[in-house]
């Protein structure tokens, strides 16, 4: 078992714990803002996991996917936050 295999197992477990915690907050979140925030965290963990897989397997196939996700991750949370704002003249 090589070093990077051990690394991939440890990192996979840690990413999994983080993602499950984010999903738990999406389910249990008291407000929609908590859910939007947890969705953002889940997306960030997904981006990090994509990058970790690329670094471990030494390829760059999904680097463009990371770029697009980093560009458009902002849309969902901002629209939810705008929808939540009660008296917002700006």
């Amino acid at each position, binding site marked *: 078992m090589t070093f990077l295999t051990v690394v991939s197992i440890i990192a996979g477990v840690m990413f999994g714990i983080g993602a499950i915690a984010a999903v738990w907050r999406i389910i249990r979140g008291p407000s929609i*803002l908590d859910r939007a925030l947890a969705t953002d*965290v889940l997306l960030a963990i997904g981006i*990090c996991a994509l990058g970790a897989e690329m*670094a471990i397997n030494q390829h760059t196939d999904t680097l463009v996917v990371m770029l697009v996700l980093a560009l458009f*991750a902002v849309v969902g949370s901002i629209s939810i936050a705008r929808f939540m704002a009660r008296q917002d003249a*700006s």
Partner: protein
Amino acid sequence: MSAAELTAGVLVVLSAFFSMAAGLGIVRFPDVLTRLHAATKPQVLGLATVLLAIVVQVPTWGVATTAVLVMTFQLLTQPMTAHMLGRSAYRTEHVRRDLLIEDELGRDIAEHAVPDELDESEPGAEPEETVGPEGRM
């Protein structure tokens, strides 16, 4: 096992640890603002370490420039998200005020409140926050 593999492995484990810490943080912390603090870790630090790991593993110019581009867009967009979420959390009263040490936004809102709006008993509502008296943000 080369030095590049060792560095990339350590960086990947670090990024995974940040992701786990963020997950535990948004489960454990009490309100939206403190969860925003926890959410920043994989979004900025975790992404930076994992991009560094990719550049160490595949050291070409194309990969390096794309990694810089990903990090730039993430650093441009995530503060906007955090700002909007924190702003609407404050305005819709999803903030635990007993946990706040200092509430500077509340103080400014109380200073610049329009007299007509004072009767509405909505402490989070203030119509001209983005355009202050001197046009400041």
